[in-house]
């Protein structure tokens, strides 16, 4: 348990750096490899901005909560057989609670500065984030069915014969939608969009903004590790040791999520809301029903 937590904390900064590099590849925003570090250092030297009559406590704490939720979510991912930071019989539910609290934290991040653009971002994000989270829970329940357990360890072990990405082909694409929502990127970034001058981060600067971006990338790492474990067999694989397989799959999901965020068009929030409720949510029901038929004895 302590070994797993320690390895995660050692690997996380490097993975966050890799995520930041992926975000810059092909965008022409400065140096690709060293740029994120320079930007982070520059932000750390700038002062935090203040707004009129903010909710100072929530404004201060929101980036920290976001990072904490990413770490708690990451802690249920098993690194190798028997090595997991928090060995819970209900790991998938804990991940779901992290998703739900992420919506709350992003809302508080936009609500607390008491400023129009962050507030609009916060409300839009709640409307989109809640259905995205809802459908991810149906997808995760479908992944838990063949394992007959809510524990992520059991879900990985149940994929020894066949990975869930083949057994439940709808699962991973639907779960990627959640990944775009909890990491505030691409077509589901209604919180921090450029059309709101940064949305919930519009009033942020300095270390607070640096921590928020860091937490956002940490959440991308946590989501990718979770998707790799639940759908791509986690540490399972031939030849290489388990943790290396997990690392390779996590980086692959991370790259795919960043690419999906760039590839898919953004829509007005109302249209995205209809799409989520009318098309994607029934698809997740269909996925659950198919998996239920498959595991019937």
């Amino acid at each position: 348990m302590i070994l797993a937590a320690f390895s995660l904390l050692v690997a996380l900064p490097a993975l966050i750096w890799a995520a930041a590099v992926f975000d810059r590849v092909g965008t022409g925003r400065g140096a690709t490899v060293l740029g994120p570090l320079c930007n982070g250092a520059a932000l750390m030297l700038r002062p935090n901005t203040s707004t009129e009559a903010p909710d100072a406590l929530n404004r201060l704490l929101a980036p920290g909560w976001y990072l904490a939720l990413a770490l708690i979510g990451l802690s249920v991912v098993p690194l190798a057989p028997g090595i997991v930071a928090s060995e819970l019989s209900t790991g998938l539910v804990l991940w779901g609670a992290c998703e739900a609290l992420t919506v709350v934290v992003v809302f508080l991040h936009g609500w607390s500065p008491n400023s129009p653009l962050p507030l609009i971002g916060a409300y839009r994000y709640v409307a989109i984030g809640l259905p995205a989270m809802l459908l991810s829970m149906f997808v995760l329940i479908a992944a838990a069915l063949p394992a007959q357990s809510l524990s992520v360890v059991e879900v990985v072990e149940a994929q020894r014969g066949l990975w869930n990405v083949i057994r439940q082909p709808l699962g991973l694409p639907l779960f990627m939608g959640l990944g775009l929502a909890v990491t505030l990127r691409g077509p589901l970034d209604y919180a921090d969009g450029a059309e709101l001058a940064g949305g919930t981060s519009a009033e942020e600067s300095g270390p607070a903004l640096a921590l928020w971006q860091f937490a956002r990338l940490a959440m991308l790492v946590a989501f990718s590790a979770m998707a790799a474990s639940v759908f791509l067999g986690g540490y399972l694989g031939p030849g290489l040791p388990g943790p290396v397989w997990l690392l390779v799959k996590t980086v692959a999901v991370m790259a795919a999520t960043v690419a999906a965020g760039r590839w898919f068009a953004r829509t007005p929030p109302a249209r995205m809301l209809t799409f989520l409720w009318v098309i994607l949510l029934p698809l997740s029901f269909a996925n659950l029903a198919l998996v239920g038929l498959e595991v019937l004895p």
Partner: protein
Amino acid sequence: MTDALFLALSALAIWSGWRVFRVDSMVRASFQLMVSFIAVGLIAVLLAAPYIGIATIFMMAVEMMVMALFMVMFMMNPAGLNPMMMVHQHRFAVAAGIAAFAGLVLAVLLSDLPAQPVPADAQVVRALGHELLGPSMLIFETAGVTLLSAMISAVVLSAHSGRYGGSDEGSRPPGLQPGGEPAGRKPDRHDGHHHHHHGGH
């Protein structure tokens, strides 16, 4: 260790529950209530009920977020940051609170609570699943559907009266003088299509 955690979480639950009625904003009140429920959920985890505990945290996060959103939507306090009074009917509320607290304390003190610890190899999540989808299924499903229909009805009934009259009659602002013509832009007598055919009439 467990005792210290239990006491700290209980204190957090009670303190944040009290703060719900002392803060001046609906959003703050919702999330104070959420903190209180998270503390209760963690106590359930300590009591070897991991599914119920973590599911409480999950449910309450969603529920309080939706509640904050709906309260702000229906009470026309656009941001939820504007200070407002969060309590009303003081005397009745104080009396009801004291009576409920005394009743619950009496119930805890007088009832014979089980004290044997849960065996380490007990499959609590599986047992809960069998209970929920076995003997108690009818009760839970009935209660769930009843609550859902109650929520939808409440929204339909309360959303009907808009700012300028019934919401299904279109929005017509009141007149500038009492009983006068409605203020604002006059709607066209003909719709665009009709107007196009009979231009000049």
